[in-house]
């Protein structure tokens, strides 16, 4: 390996470590700020080290109604969790079924269905946000989990991914299953589902992050505070009072909002990279 240069390696490590620190910096400042009282915070500039009020701040955020929002963080964490799990599992389920139909069956109207579903790849929910709101209001689904979840499932990314994967399944597998007398449902459940495990895990990570980090949609359709999600509530908390921003609570909330998805991404790193690269191809 003639092209290795030790000097350049040291330089690379230095720059990478610098980047790692720069990436962590905002979270570190939030961690330290969340452990001080408001009076402490406003006596000088933001502290670089921890204070003693951390436990108190987190307990008060999690148990008491948050000023400007009206619900406690534990309610909102639950809402975020239900919403993101609903989107992840719902999208995986309907997409897998639809891809299965498109790949393994021949029936009149198949091409049309295919194009109807794949057209949704072109437009994210944000573009048609106002009319979607009216549709959901007409269906009486404001302030409800189905209203938060279903419109965000109307996209074909996962269907596309499953289709690509199903096309690589060797045809002999289906022949063998048919010879052994397996019907379409048995083939799906006993053969395709176990084969798709890795793809499902990868999609789950991507969809969970997508659901958890939604902002505009839950902001619009949750007029009742008890349905707010953590990510949405941050703004209301930060702009609650005309006076000083309660940064110790805002940073504590921000940490609660970012810890679950960050844990998922770190624990499932391998699936995350696969899911990201596959689903965008």
């Amino acid at each position, binding site marked *: 390996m003639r*092209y290795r240069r030790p000097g350049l390696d040291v330089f690379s490590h230095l720059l*990478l470590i610098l980047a790692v620190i720069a990436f962590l910096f905002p979270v570190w400042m939030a961690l330290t700020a969340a452990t001080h009282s408001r009076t402490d915070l406003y006596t000088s500039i*933001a502290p670089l080290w921890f204070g003693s009020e951390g436990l108190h701040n987190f307990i008060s955020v999690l148990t008491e109604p948050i000023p400007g929002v009206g619900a406690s963080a534990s309610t909102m964490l639950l809402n975020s969790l239900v919403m993101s799990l609903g989107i992840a599992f719902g999208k995986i389920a309907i997409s897998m079924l639809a891809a299965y139909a498109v790949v393994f069956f021949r029936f009149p109207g198949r091409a049309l269905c295919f194009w109807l579903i794949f057209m949704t790849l072109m437009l994210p929910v944000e573009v048609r*946000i106002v009319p979607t709101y009216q549709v959901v209001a007409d269906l009486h689904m404001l302030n409800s989990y189905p209203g938060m979840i279903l419109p965000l499932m109307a996209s074909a990314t996962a269907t596309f991914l499953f289709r690509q994967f199903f096309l690589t399944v060797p045809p002999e597998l289906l022949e063998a299953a048919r010879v052994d007398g397996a019907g379409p449902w048995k083939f799906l459940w006993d053969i395709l589902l176990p084969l798709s495990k890795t793809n499902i895990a990868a999609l789950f990570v991507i969809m969970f992050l997508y659901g958890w980090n939604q902002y505009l949609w839950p902001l619009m359709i949750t007029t009742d505070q008890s349905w707010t999600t953590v990510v949405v509530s941050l703004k209301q908390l930060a702009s609650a009072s005309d006076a000083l921003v309660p*940064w110790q609570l805002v*940073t504590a909330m921000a940490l609660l909002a970012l810890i679950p998805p960050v844990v*998922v991404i770190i624990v499932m790193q391998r699936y995350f990279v696969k899911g990201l690269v596959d689903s965008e191809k």
Partner: protein
Amino acid sequence: MATFQHQRLTPWLLLAPQLVVVGLFFFWPAGQAIYQSLFTQDPFGLASTFSGLQNFIDVLHDPEYLAAFTVTILFTLSVAVASLCIALLLAVLADRVIKGSRFYRTLLTWPYAVAPAVAAVLWSFLFDPSLGRISHFLELVGVHWDHHINGGQALALVIIASVWVHVSYNFVFFLAGLQAIPKSLLEAAAIDAAGPWRRFWTITFPLLSPIMFFLLITNTTYAFFETFGAIDATTAGGPGGATRTLIYKIYEDGFKGLDVGHSAAQSVLLMILVAALTLVQFRYIERKAHY
């Protein structure tokens, strides 16, 4: 491809859930947007009259719309260029070092999990005029920072937060692309006495260009839509419209201002823009598949 024969009902049962969801929440609203864009509604939503393309003409003559367009272009270009450059640099470095490349990958990809709104709030704390670390530092070097008053600084704040989130996304793709480049190519160039700089520009960079193009488009859609949270949570389009992007204006006009017709016309214009971008992306993918 082997398929199941003589099944009439099963494929429809399988497709039904997705078709219902897509029909109700995609085609119905998209149709509504197009329909509403052709009508003028009174503010109470009681009556509407057909007005043809008047809404579109109004929108395109609205100086605020053109301002939002400029802000969007400026914002998108800054986010895309900055996050692509930083990500490429970091990916090249992480690809070089053999020890710890997995460690760096984990520590450089996690910000992707942070919602743009949360990221923007974290950064607005660092830039808080009274107690932020960075604004304090800027004060020392003679820059007075207050993104509540200064439009340029507000835009810079949401750009920084959006870049911070999105570098990790580009980093994942660049690293995957770099690892797919055959090492023998680089070694051959090294034997021919090409230095690292030259190897990068004559071999690595051209081989990465398809990924670069793909990322440019996904970065554009990211900056268009997903950054709504970052803007709303910190600057709310202000001060004085300095951070009001196209998507923010649709939200303001349609949802806060209840001006359904003009908002729908903006939605349709944005749909056309995004559909065009996506078509370009599809064409590119097809080309790559034929290689």
